[in-house]
């Protein structure tokens, strides 16, 4: 590799390649020479599975501006998702507290 700008993150999820979905193990982000986009360098993102053959890969090559827009969109979506997840967790907690204890419910039924 000529570039030292490579970030490898563990990934859990699925990616699509042609008509086939495969499970992920890693996301690899680099800033390196573009292979397909008509750019000198590009932010490349590879979603891969290290345990599968090399073809198990979903890839993009983005301009820096596109990558920044993607990063901002990801950050926004993640922030909103975390609020939603907090609310969901709080709702579950409220439901748990409001529900009668199993022993009490058993007594009423008796």
């Amino acid at each position, binding site marked *: 590799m000529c570039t*030292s700008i490579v970030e490898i993150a563990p990934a859990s999820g699925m990616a699509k390649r042609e008509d086939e979905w495969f499970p992920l193990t890693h996301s*690899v982000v680099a800033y390196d*020479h573009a*292979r*397909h986009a008509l750019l000198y360098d590009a932010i490349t993102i*590879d979603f891969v599975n290290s345990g599968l*053959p*090399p073809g198990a*890969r979903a*890839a993009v090559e983005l301009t820096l501006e596109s990558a920044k827009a993607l990063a901002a969109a990801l950050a926004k979506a993640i922030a909103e998702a975390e609020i939603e997840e907090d609310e969901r967790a709080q709702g579950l907690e409220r439901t748990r507290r409001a529900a009668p204890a199993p022993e009490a419910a058993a007594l009423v039924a008796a």
Partner: protein
Amino acid sequence: MTYRGMTVEEIKIAGDKGTPISAYVARPSGPGPFPGVVLIHHLPAWSELYCEMTRKFAHHGYIAICANLYERVGQGNPDDIGAKVRAEGGVPDAQVIGDTEGAVKWMRAQPGHNGKVGVFGSCSGGRHAFLYACHKKDVDACVELWGGRVVMAKEELNAKTPTSPIELTKTLSCPLLGIFGNEDRAPSPEQVNQHEAELKKHGKAHEFYRYDGAGHGIFYYHRPMYRVEQALDGWNKVFAFFGKHLAR
């Protein structure tokens, strides 16, 4: 002299630790004797471009071989192979040296070979070509095209790349040709200057050419980084250099 007739084939050679790996071979027609060139491919893998460059050397009268350094990663599209190698943090330098040694040995065993071998690589292959010529004494000339990470910071070193190649300059065993673009960042002009200063410090024979208006990948005609004027001049310099050092 050019050779329009040639034979090309895919063969197996003994790579690092005797592991069989594939190699693309091009051989000019005729009895020879021909000098040899071992090509070391870049991160985009054992690609069509490197097969073309292998044939280009045969066209110019060299037996040429390019081994698949990523064979162990699997089979498939070179793009995907390169991506998998990157996801694994690259291939070990020691393994590349072992694989390249296998290609050099193959070359030296060929009938019609003149006994001289040059090593040639671009990008990460340029780095590996320099690294090989520092580790081994069985090549007669080395061409390093825009080799990135010849100069490495301590924090970049790891089990696969344990030594910054520049630290090995004192053991460089043959003349070196370097071609670089002044707009490149890997290697940057400052790193190229460091590289050359170390060569001078140890009295190593070298020719360095730095092109304005060019960055990385000057010869890659299928990419926006291609610079026709610099590429034509650069190829002339490659053939002049090998012509001088690999003739017998």
